[in-house]
C-alpha cells in the first residue's frame, strides 16, 4: 500500500477508516481536532457515508458513539484530555454496559499544557473505568493499534481507551497502510438487557467487568505492544511507556544492546513483565509522558523494593513534557546545549487577530464595567480567554467549559454585583446552556455575554452548533425576550454597546447579550472560497 505522510491524529483517523469505521464522533479540542477533520476531508469517508459530524460536546459524542456500537457498527470518539472529564459519565458506564460493535475512545493529553488548562493523564481513566488502554509511541504504531483496538473491543465486548499526547498527535511521519476491512452490518446485541444498568443488572455486569479486566491483560493484542529486550548491563533496567520510548532510543540507539528495556504501550500489563525486568537488574528507571502512573504502581506505598528512578524522586521532572535532553539527563548521559536565548528576545504570547470581534467586545465591556471595579467578569475557554492578558485584562476566570455562566451565578448568590459571564458561542452550546437554565429558574441577577463568532475559533474554525440558534435557545430556556439583546461588536457601535451593557447590568434578573461578528479567520477563508468558486 501507498505510504502516507500523516500526523499522529491523521494516522489514527486513516486507520479507523481502513478498519471499517462507521461513525466518528468528536468535539474539537487541541490536540485531538485533526482526527475528525481528516475524516471529514476524506473522499472515502464521504463515499461510504461514514458519520462525521461534530457533536455539541464530548459527552454527547461519547454517547452517540456508544449508540453506534449498540447497533453493531464500529465507532470512534475523540477528544482532548479534559474532554474526557466531560464524557466521563458515559465513558465509565460504557465499560459497565460493554459494547456491541467495536468502540475506541481517543483521548489526547497535553503535557506541558501547550493549549490546555491542566495536564491530567488519561491512563488513570483506563484504570478507573477498568478498560484497556493503548498508548502508541509513533505514528505507524498508532495506525496498527487501531486495528487491534477494534478487535480487542469486540472480543471482550469492552470499549478501548486510546491515549496519545500532543507530540504524537501533531507530529508527521510516513505511515504504511493496510488492506481495508469492510464495515460491520447493523446487528443488535444478543442480550436485550446489556445496556440496562439497573442495580440488579449492574451488579452482575460489574463482576463481569472485574474479571474481564483481569483476563484482558493476557490477550496477545495487548501483549504485542509490551515487549522486553534484554541488554548486557545489569546495573540499570529501563521501563519506557508510549512516546517516552522514542526519547530513550534517541539517546541509546547506538548502544541499544547495553540496556535491558521494557517498552509498555498497552495497559493493563502483566505482573510477569515487571518481575522479568526487575529480577534481572539492580535498579530501574521509569520513563513515562504525563503522570507517574507506572512508577507509582511499581513503588506502591511502601516503596521498599528495588531502587526506582523516575518522576517521583526527581530524576525526571515531576511535571511537563519529556524531551530527549531530559531523558539524557535521567540516563546520566552528557547533555548538549546550544547558546542561551539572548536577553533581547521578548515573550510573544498569542493575541487576538487583527479584525477580531472579541477585541471590540472587550473594549466595550471594559468601559461598561469600569465604574464597578475589578473582579466581576467570569469567562470561559476559547480565543476570548486571551482577554485575561494585557492590554485587556478583562476577565478573572477560565476554569472549564461553561463555568463562566455557573460561576457568575454563584458569585451573584454571594452578593457580587454586577456578576457577568463572557462565553463563546460554541462553548455556550457545549456546556453553558444548563447553567443558564439554573440562572433562569432562580432569577439570578447575572449578565451573560455570548461572544459569538459563529465558529469554534480556537481550534481552527470548526462548525459551531450555536450558529443561528442563540436567540431561540436563550428564549427557549426562559430568558425574557426583551433581555436577549443582539449587538454587533464594532468600533462604530462602541458607545451604544457600552450603554446596552450597563443597562443590562442593572436589570435584576437574567439577561443575555449576544455579541455577534464572524471570526476574521473563517470570514477570510469563506471569502477566498467564494471568490475561487466564481
Amino acid at each position, binding site marked *: 500500500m501507498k505510504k502516507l505522510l500523516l500526523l499522529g491524529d491523521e494516522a489514527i483517523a486513516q486507520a479507523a477508516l481502513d478498519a471499517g469505521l462507521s461513525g466518528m464522533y468528536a468535539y474539537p479540542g*487541541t490536540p485531538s481536532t485533526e482526527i475528525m477533520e481528516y475524516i471529514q476531508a476524506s473522499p472515502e469517508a464521504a463515499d461510504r457515508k461514514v458519520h462525521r459530524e461534530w457533536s455539541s460536546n464530548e459527552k454527547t459524542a461519547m454517547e452517540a458513539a456508544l449508540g453506534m456500537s449498540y447497533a453493531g457498527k464500529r465507532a470512534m470518539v475523540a477528544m482532548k484530555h479534559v474532554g474526557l472529564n466531560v464524557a466521563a459519565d458515559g465513558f465509565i458506564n460504557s465499560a459497565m454496559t460493554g459494547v456491541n460493535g467495536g468502540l475506541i475512545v481517543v483521548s489526547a493529553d497535553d503535557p506541558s499544557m501547550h493549549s490546555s488548562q491542566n495536564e491530567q493523564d488519561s491512563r488513570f481513566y483506563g484504570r478507573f473505568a477498568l478498560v484497556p488502554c493503548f498508548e502508541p509511541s509513533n505514528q505507524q504504531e498508532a495506525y496498527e493499534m487501531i486495528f487491534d483496538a477494534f478487535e480487542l473491543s469486540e472480543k471482550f465486548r469492552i470499549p478501548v481507551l486510546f491515549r496519545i499526547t500532543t507530540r504524537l498527535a501533531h*507530529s508527521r511521519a510516513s505511515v504504511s497502510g493496510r488492506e481495508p476491512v469492510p464495515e460491520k452490518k447493523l446487528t443488535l446485541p444478543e442480550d436485550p438487557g446489556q445496556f440496562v444498568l439497573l442495580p440488579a443488572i449492574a451488579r452482575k455486569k460489574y463482576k463481569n467487568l472485574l474479571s474481564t479486566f483481569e483476563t484482558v491483560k493476557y490477550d496477545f493484542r495487548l501483549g504485542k505492544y509490551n515487549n522486553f529486550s534484554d541488554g548486557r548491563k545489569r546495573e540499570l533496567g529501563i521501563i519506557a511507556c508510549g512516546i517516552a520510548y522514542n526519547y530513550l532510543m534517541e539517546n541509546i540507539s547506538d548502544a541499544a544492546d547495553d540496556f535491558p528495556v521494557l517498552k509498555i504501550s498497552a495497559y493493563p500489563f502483566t505482573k510477569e513483565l515487571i518481575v522479568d525486568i526487575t529480577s534481572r537488574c539492580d535498579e530501574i528507571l521509569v520513563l513515562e509522558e504525563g503522570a507517574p502512573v507506572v512508577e507509582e504502581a511499581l513503588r506502591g506505598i511502601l516503596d521498599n523494593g528495588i531502587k526506582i528512578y523516575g518522576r517521583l524522586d526527581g530524576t525526571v521532572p515531576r511535571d511537563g513534557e519529556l524531551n*530527549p535532553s531530559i531523558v539524557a539527563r535521567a540516563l546520566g548521559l552528557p547533555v548538549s546545549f*546550544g547558546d542561551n*536565548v539572548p536577553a*533581547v528576545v521578548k515573550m510573544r504570547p498569542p493575541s487576538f487577530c487583527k479584525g477580531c470581534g472579541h477585541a471590540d467586545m472587550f473594549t466595550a465591556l471594559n468601559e461598561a464595567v469600569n465604574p464597578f471595579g475589578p473582579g466581576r467578569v467570569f469567562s470561559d475557554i476559547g480565543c476570548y480567554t486571551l482577554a485575561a492578558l494585557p492590554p485587556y485584562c478583562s476577565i478573572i476566570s477560565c476554569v472549564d467549559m461553561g463555568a463562566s455562566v455557573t460561576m457568575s451565578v454563584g458569585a451573584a448568590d454571594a452578593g457580587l454585583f454586577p456578576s457577568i459571564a463572557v462565553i463563546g458561542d460554541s462553548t455556550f452550546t457545549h456546556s453553558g446552556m444548563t447553567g443558564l437554565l439554573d440562572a433562569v429558574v432562580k432569577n439570578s441577577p447575572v449578565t451573560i455575554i455570548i461572544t459569538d463568532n459563529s465558529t469554534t475559533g*480556537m481550534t481552527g474554525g470548526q462548525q459551531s452548533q450555536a450558529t443561528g440558534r442563540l436567540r431561540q435557545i436563550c428564549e427557549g430556556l426562559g430568558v425574557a425576550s426583551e433581555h436577549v439583546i443582539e449587538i454587533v461588536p464594532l468600533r462604530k457601535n462602541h458607545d451604544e454597546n457600552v450603554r446596552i451593557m450597563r443597562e443590562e447590568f442593572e436589570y435584576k434578573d437574567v439577561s443575555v447579550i449576544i455579541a455577534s461578528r464572524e471570526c476574521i479567520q473563517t470570514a477570510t477563508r469563506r471569502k477566498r472560497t467564494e471568490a475561487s468558486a466564481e
Partner: protein
Amino acid sequence: MKNDIILSGVGGQGILSIAAAIGLAAVANELFLKQSEVHGMSQRGGDVQSHLRLSDKPVSSDLIPHGKADLIISVEPMESLRYLPWLSGEGWLVTNSNPFINIPDYPPVEDIITEIKKVKNHIIIDADTIAKEVGSARSGNMVILGASSWFIDMSEGSIREAIKNLFGKKGEEIVEVNLKAFMAGRAYTAGIRS
C-alpha cells in the same frame, strides 16, 4: 545523512508551508522523516516552531535534542534567536530580516541583528523585498527556503518538484511565483557552503 531543522516564526506567518515543501521532498527522496508541528493556541499570533528531522535511518524522537540542530530557518528575526539552545556549534541560522511586530515591547531591530551576527554561521535575508521583486509579496517563505536549501541534503530538483506539488492545486501562476522565489533565495546564498 541527517538534517535536524528548526523552523520558527509567528503564528499565521505560514512556517508550515516551508515544512510541507521539505517534507514532500523528503518523501520523494525516500528519507525517514518526523515533523513536529504547533497547532492550537499559539497559532493566534504567538511564537511557533516546528522540528523537522530528515535522515536515511529511522528517526526516533519527534523532537530535536538541545544543541543538535543543523539548521534554524526563521521567517522572523527575533524568533530565530529563541531557538539558539537547539542549534549546534556548527549549525546554520537562516532568517528573514523583516520583523513581525505584534507586541508592545518588541526590541529595536538593530539589537536583534547584532545578536544574530554573534551566531557563527548566519544568513540574514530581506525575503520580503526579494519576494516582491519576483512578483508576489506572499512568497517570502519560499525565498527563505531557497536561501536555506544549500544546507538541506536534497537536490535542488527534488525541492522544486515538492514546491510544484505543494502549490499545484492553486494554479500554474502561483507555482511559478513560488519557484521563482525559491530560486531567488537560493541564488542569494549561492556558494555559501563551499
